[in-house]
């Protein structure tokens, strides 16, 4: 079916560009096809797909990818989905105009996070890398393994490296999936920590 296996020559794009006007039609059609293939892969993938992965799977040049993504975005405008670029790549999501409808019809899809979980996540996000006991120190509470399990389960945190202290505790970091979930493309985009002056005069 998809005969675009040749590594460098996926669609008849470059030659047509210099050719007769009739071929421009053809060029257009194949871009449309490529945009459909992108749409299929984004739907079928379990995680967002990077530009690199899309180019590799569909043997596209950077320019072809860009054009095909534009075609895709234009086509999506007639429906209810958006092409969204996140820290770890492109994904298809339901346009936020419809969030209210979804929340109303499927209240169980609306996920609430407990304060304890949010605080734990914030310590990791803002102070990473941290150990389990760093989190306990900041929060003043024993860390429940259930909270950590949930964060691991969501793929929002990972263990990477050790702190060179007694017991060599593992260091926790946030992941690209964490950024994806909170609509950030980089850790720099985390909301700024409130400054201490404001904190001191609490009211």
């Amino acid at each position, binding site marked *: 079916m998809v005969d675009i296996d040749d590594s460098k020559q996926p669609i008849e794009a470059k030659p047509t560009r210099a050719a007769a006007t009739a071929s421009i039609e053809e060029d257009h059609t194949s871009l449309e096809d490529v945009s459909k293939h992108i749409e299929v892969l984004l*739907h*079928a993938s379990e995680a967002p797909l990077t530009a690199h992965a899309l180019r590799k799977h569909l043997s596209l040049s950077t320019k072809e990818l860009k054009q095909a993504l534009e075609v895709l975005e234009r086509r999506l405008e007639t429906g209810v*989905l958006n092409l969204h670029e996140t820290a770890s790549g492109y*994904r*298809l*999501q*339901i346009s*936020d105009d419809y*969030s209210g409808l*979804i929340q109303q019809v499927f209240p169980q*899809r*609306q*996920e*609430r*996070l407990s*304060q*304890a979980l*949010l*605080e734990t*996540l*914030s*310590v990791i*996000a*803002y102070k990473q890398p941290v*150990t*389990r006991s760093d989190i306990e*120190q*900041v*929060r*003043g*509470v*024993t860390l429940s*393994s259930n909270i*950590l*399990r949930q964060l*691991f389960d969501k793929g929002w945190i990972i*263990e*990477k490296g*050790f702190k060179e202290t007694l017991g*060599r*505790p*593992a260091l926790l970091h946030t992941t690209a999936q964490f950024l*994806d*979930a*909170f*609509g*950030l493309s980089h850790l720099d985009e*985390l*909301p700024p*920590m*409130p400054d*201490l002056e404001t*904190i*001191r*005069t*609490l*009211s």
Partner: protein
Amino acid sequence: MDTSNTTALRIYQTPVQHLPDDLYVPPQAFAIWLEQFAGPLDFLLYLVKKNNVDLTQMPILPITEQYLAYISELDTEHFELAGDYLLMASTLIAIKTELLLPTPDTPTDERDPKAELIERLEEYAQIKAASQRLDNLIRLERDVFLAMVSMPSQDVMNAELPNYSPTLLIDSLFKMQLQPDYQMHTIKTDIVPLSDRIASISRQLSTDGARSFYELLDKAQGKIGVVVSFVAVLELIKRQLVGVVYTEPNNDASTLMKYDTDPSDINNQSQELTLQWLA
């Protein structure tokens, strides 16, 4: 100090004017109330806020007394909830004692415990505020939703679909139950995953009651499989799910003799070590 100067604070929907002097909080309600806080620092922060004071000017004595008054309301039934709170109480008592003692003229190396506490409170307050900001971000699966679609029809896709073994199900249940709390160390992925061996051995033993170690081995896994299986058995014994029973050797004497001096007789010996499911 001025306890009537409370900010608008509420316990559930009821506005509370005077705390803690005029409010009797029954122990049961108190336990529920404690659950409203994310921990002792959160609670302490609330007390400071209620007294409407600058954190750096925190009047440690009245705050300490308020805190201790609440903690003393806890009845013994709810101690499990209160471990972290009691730890904080002891910190506060230590600070209070220090403040009541005359200040020695000789400077000490020790840090001022009050300053330390205030620092921790500040740091906590910062993280708490940051976590609220994090919660205000537009979040996937709360504010925006991924589009879910189904794959092309089963018959088309299924052509190469493998059959699944029902033991996959039972193994996954074992894994779920046997999974210890997240240990803080990274695990190298082995060719023979320990968790798989634990699950598989548990299944075999719980189905059959008892088996020899040798019978539990998956021959395809080779030497490393033997080692991992052994560790798996040790782990199960540690968790008291599996016990070891010594059975009378019923091999004929010549076989025993023959392997007696052979270093490879470990296999043979372990055949007499029967492992039994205890759960």
